[in-house]
């Protein structure tokens, strides 16, 4: 079974049997997810460990994390098309694919997470415009459409599909006006990344999550955007680097990676300054005003190590690394710094979801901990498997990396 004629021009891919094995592994993960999804849909959400205190569980954490990490798509697109940083052209395709994976994966997970998926469209039909979640639902679905529109031309550039004239021209024309979609995507992403943060900031009756703000947007609105665009490029670049390690090929010049790292690092710095200011204000001014002390927030097992992990290991450390030129020159330490950056934003999403629900508000309530069931892990793993499958297929059959042929001169 030789699929070489589908490979992008001038590139070599691993033998189909290796690719088949890899696909089998991913499909096994996806199978586990399907079983979990069936159980949750058929028997109901009692299959999870969520309850009336933990209305949100690991699914929402993963949703928020992959949408934050998927921000690489819109921000790279924004820099490439709107800010005319042309060298990002070599990584924009990967960014778009990762963005598409994250958003479509998140929406599928939300489909299972809500109690009545069949009534999901009520959020659009009977919209409550004052709710941050409505804004999230509107923007995420619209931005997914934008991502699909950005992903389609890449698919149509597969060597065989490109032969069909209609599709060839359609892909080309879409590409010429891509700036329109990139700009709309940026506008939409700005709002829903913010609204995901706003979702927690507006909970004025939940002291841990509540924040002051400007007009209708709590500070978490802006903090979530900043942390997303700080982590997005890192996530995209680290995925590309991991693909390079796995396939043994150089996919983009190191210059592109250094640029992404530099952007990521500076945004991370900007975010950390604001985040630490917000945390200090929240811990020493806002919380006492509500009659609570930070020690109430940090109880076993969600102790202060979470703060250190989020802002220290996941924040300050990668920021320093990404901003120092020697690190950006290196390969492995750069990869490590970017992964730490992603780890930081994931911890932030975890803390804002799980810990804010664990903290009791009524003085006579108890502090509860939460541990997902295998079904919940199954569906989270399913999204990751879905990502592997889509990215592997895209890498194998679509011309994702323009510089690949030049960087890996084939012998014949």
């Amino acid at each position: 079974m030789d699929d070489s004629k589908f490979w992008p021009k001038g590139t070599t891919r691993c033998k189909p049997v290796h690719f088949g094995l890899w696909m089998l592994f991913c499909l096994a993960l996806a199978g586990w997810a399907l079983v979990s999804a069936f159980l949750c849909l058929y028997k109901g959400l009692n299959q999870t460990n969520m309850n009336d205190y933990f209305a949100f569980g690991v699914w929402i954490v993963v949703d928020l994390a992959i949408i934050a990490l998927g921000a690489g798509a819109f921000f790279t697109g924004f820099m490439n098309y709107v800010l005319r940083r042309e060298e990002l052209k070599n990584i924009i395709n990967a960014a778009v694919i990762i963005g598409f994976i994250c958003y479509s994966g998140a929406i599928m997970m939300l489909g299972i997470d809500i109690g009545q998926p069949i009534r999901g469209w009520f959020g659009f039909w009977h919209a409550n415009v004052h709710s941050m979640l409505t804004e999230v639902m509107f923007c995420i679905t619209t931005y997914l459409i934008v991502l699909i529109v950005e992903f389609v031309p890449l698919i149509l550039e597969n060597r065989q599909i490109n032969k069909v004239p209609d599709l060839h021209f359609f892909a080309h024309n879409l590409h010429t006006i891509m700036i329109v979609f990139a700009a709309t995507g940026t506008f939409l992403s700005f709002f829903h990344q913010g609204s995901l943060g706003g979702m927690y900031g507006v909970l004025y009756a939940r002291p841990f999550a509540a924040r002051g703000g400007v007009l209708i947007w709590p500070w978490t609105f802006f903090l979530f955007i900043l942390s997303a665009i700080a982590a997005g490029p890192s996530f995209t670049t680290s995925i590309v680097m991991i693909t390079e390690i796995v396939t043994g090929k150089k996919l983009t010049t190191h210059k592109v990676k250094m640029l992404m790292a530099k952007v990521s690092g500076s945004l991370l710095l900007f975010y950390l300054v604001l985040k630490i200011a917000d945390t200090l204000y929240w811990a020493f001014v806002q919380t006492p005003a509500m009659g609570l002390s930070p020690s109430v927030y940090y109880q076993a097992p969600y102790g202060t190590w979470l703060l250190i992990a989020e802002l220290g290991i996941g924040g300050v450390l990668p920021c320093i690394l990404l901003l120092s030129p020697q690190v950006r020159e290196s390969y492995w330490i750069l990869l490590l710094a970017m992964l730490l950056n992603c780890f930081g934003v994931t911890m932030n999403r975890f803390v804002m979801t799980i810990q804010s629900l664990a903290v009791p508000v009524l003085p006579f309530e108890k502090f509860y901990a939460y541990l997902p069931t295998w079904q919940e892990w199954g569906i989270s793993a399913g999204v990751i498997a879905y990502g592997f499958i889509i990215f592997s297929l895209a890498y194998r059959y679509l011309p994702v990396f323009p510089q690949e042929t030049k960087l890996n001169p084939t012998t014949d």
Partner: protein
Amino acid sequence: MSSSASEMRFGMVIDVDKCTGCGACSVACMSENNVGVLPDETDKIRSITWLRVYQIDNGQPYPNTQIAFFPRPCQHCAGSQGHHTPCVSVCPATATDRDPKTGIVSQIPTRCIGCRYCVAACPYHARYFNWYDVPWPEGMDKPLSPFVAPRMRGVVEKCTFCFHRYQRAQNKAFTSGEAMGEMDYQTACTEACPSGAITFGDLNNPEHKVHELKKSPYAFRLLERLHTDTAVYYVSAREWVRRQADNYLSGEKLAKVQAGGGH
């Protein structure tokens, strides 16, 4: 909080010193509103009791230990200082809404998509999600009331201040012509309480008992500092009970936050 003549604000005054935690209010509420029972109800944070009776104690060692009870229905918050009712403002599908005419927060299970954002937003844990499809074994569906629709799985439900009794009182008023009196619309828990600890009525109406009771110096509300402006007042002559209603820093004195809309 301004209240025009036509605007009613139904609320409760619960005397904690009369409540002995017997649970009659909780059971009467579940029987009145067709709340189901799962085979295993020991997981208390998944058990649906619209009115949950919390047990609190003064933390003193033997022999000065004292316990008391907070029956906690939905507080039907009005929200204040620019904030809406905590749960109503967050629902994406407008499945829950606060009726300005009666001050009651409604919950429509047939529109709820089960995203549970309102459950996370409510600081009083007064909202419950149907994690299970409630089993109705042979005979258990007979004592169901036709005036409240039983809920399906995957939706949120909460105390409605027995609004179906307001609807029936409204029907009676329409056909008989007289206006609705205080005693025409009473909740199931108010009627059930053997110690008469719960009083229900229109907080804005001077003739209703609650209008006076909420003015007692011993009256307080849960989590007053969050400015949720709740409709359920609690009364207790014991200072340690009043102190359990809100979060205080160790040194803070109780008088700092006064009940009865002193914000």
